[in-house]
């Protein structure tokens, strides 16, 4: 080992290749995400699923009994614009909540598991901003997932079926660019829905030191709520729980757009996200880091 430098170190003074200003909190969290293999699994899935949907429908086209499937799937066969929308309707109930729970559930408890929580918190970073950075980065991660899904949908839709003007649920026809705008709005709505899952998972992530526990707790709650609101007895519950509004993005495809349920959904997502994240923030500020 060589001798120890005696002079006080450069606190941002000199040096041609400086880091630190450039490496802001978001950039650091982004780097952490890129250095986790599982990140790419979800992204890969989000890109691949539109391909599978397009391929399956393309092959089924020649089959007279084919073409059945969830919402939008029948229309896909004539128009690639619907592939992205079909992918959204296929992913929003499960893969995307799973991705949201995974990435946000890992954010803090994952660092606790790895032990790195006890070294990053020795740096002069406020715990509150640490939690909020984590929240933002989970949303960014999912936004990339949505973008990949959208890109995959348009790409494979164009290849297999071509992109054509879309027919709305009200029966009117909108041009390709208008249709694309509506699809992007749907994805943004989906992202807002996922913010609830992110916030809930982040809350569990601050409580437990096991990322798997945070993930499972989030998914269990999500599924329990889904099951509950499937029964008409619990209809009174529906307005109060966020999964109830997950499918309201369909209202973007009414002409004119039917905003009331969309806005109700966004209000619900905002309230739940804020509530969960705020509790996560309070808990983490006082948390004893023993990992």
């Amino acid at each position, binding site marked *: *080992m*060589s*001798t*120890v*430098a*005696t*002079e*006080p*170190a*450069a*606190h*941002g003074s*000199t*040096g*041609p*290749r*400086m*880091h*630190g*200003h450039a*490496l802001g909190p978001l950039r*650091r969290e982004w*780097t*952490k995400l890129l*250095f*986790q*293999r599982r990140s790419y699994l979800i992204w890969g899935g989000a890109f691949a699923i539109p391909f599978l949907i397009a391929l399956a429908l393309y092959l089924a086209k020649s089959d007279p009994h084919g073409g059945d499937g969830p919402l939008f799937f029948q229309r896909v066969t004539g128009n690639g614009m619907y592939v992205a929308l079909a992918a959204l309707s296929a992913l929003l109930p499960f893969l995307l909540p799973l991705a949201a729970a995974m990435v946000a559930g890992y954010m803090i408890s994952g660092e606790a598991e*790895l*032990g*790195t929580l*006890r*070294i*990053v*918190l*020795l*740096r*002069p*970073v*406020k715990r509150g901003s640490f939690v909020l950075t984590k929240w933002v980065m989970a949303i960014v991660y999912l936004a990339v997932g949505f973008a990949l899904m959208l890109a995959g949908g348009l790409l494979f839709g164009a290849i297999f079926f071509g992109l054509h003007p879309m027919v709305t649920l009200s029966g009117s026809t909108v041009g390709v660019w208008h249709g694309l705008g509506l699809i992007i709005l749907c994805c943004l709505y989906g992202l807002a829905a996922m913010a609830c899952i992110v916030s809930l998972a982040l809350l569990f992530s601050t409580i437990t030191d096991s990322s798997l526990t945070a993930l499972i707790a989030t998914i269990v709650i999500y599924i329990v709520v889904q099951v509950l609101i499937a029964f008409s007895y619990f209809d009174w519950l529906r307005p109060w729980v966020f999964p109830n509004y997950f499918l309201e993005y369909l209202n973007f495809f009414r002409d004119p757009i039917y905003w009331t349920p969309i806005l109700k959904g966004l209000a619900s997502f905002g309230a739940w996200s804020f509530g969960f994240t705020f509790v996560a923030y309070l808990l983490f500020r*006082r948390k*004893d*880091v*023993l990992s």
Partner: protein
Amino acid sequence: MTQAVAEAPTPTEREGTRPEQRSCGGRVPILTTHALTKRFGSLHAVDDLDIEVCRGDIFGFLGPNGAGKTTVIRMVLGLIHPTSGHAEVCGHRVPGELQGALRHVGGFVDDPPFYPLMSARRNLRLLGSMTGPVSEERIDEVLDIVALRDRAEDRVGGYSHGMKQRLGIAQALLHSPELIVLDEPTSGLDPRGMKDVRELIRELGAAGTTVFLSSHLLHEVEQVCTRAVIINRGKMVVQGPVSELRPQSDAVKVLTGDQGKAADTLRAQFGASSVLEDEGFLIVQAGEDAVPEMVRRLVADGVAVRAVVPAPEQGLEDFFLELTGTDGDRPVLAKRRAGLARLLPGGRR
């Protein structure tokens, strides 16, 4: 102490009550704790602890495993919140002004953890940028200090335990902090690695950095530190300059041709409690003056004396064990023997 500290007394009040423990003299304290207490349920992990580290010290924080050392470090660095009491670190009160304190502190708690898929350089860049801008030159410098420059681009996941410990020290040095807190930095290292790390700590001290070194090895603290505190079960046992911590021991190690017979002879001369067997040697609590007479008696009894050497560290270990109380181990040992006797076929008694 039963004193419930809702509001910690000022340093001067404390100085009044415990003058012997405030020993920075003219020097400036850089890390002090004031009635620092942490309870986990009914367990008093840290109990009313007052320690004082002065600027320029290489301060040994000594205690057996489970004494509460890591809990103290976690409180001082803001990872956990004290039940009562507080710390002052580099002029900032913790908790309260934690961020201010952490700007001037580097270190790690337990084993230094890193992101396994990232290279050492990327880890340093990421951690360093949380405190402030870090130049690539500075990263090279700290990697040189811990002799990891040629492995800088390798994934930390492939590092050995010793390399990770050194990388932990490197990340602590990134911003040339005033105070470096190292939690058992030599634990799990091979002798070569231990020696390297201890030398590095001495050099850091010589360069003017204050080092807070937690250790459960008394001789390590003896070798490296200027001042030390010994804690046990969350309470302070003794604090002061290392040279004053150790009692002068006059034990000698004796090796003879017939240790059994020699033990009998020596017990007759010095009393049974002064003669211990330890790894093939006899440890005798006897001053240098007693050695000629001791050897004469052994020879007279027909025991061939092969070696008699001073064993000051023996006294030190005893002192440490006595301070940190080993009485509690006895029932454990008895239970272990009973358990083994049941487990082993034809169990030995």
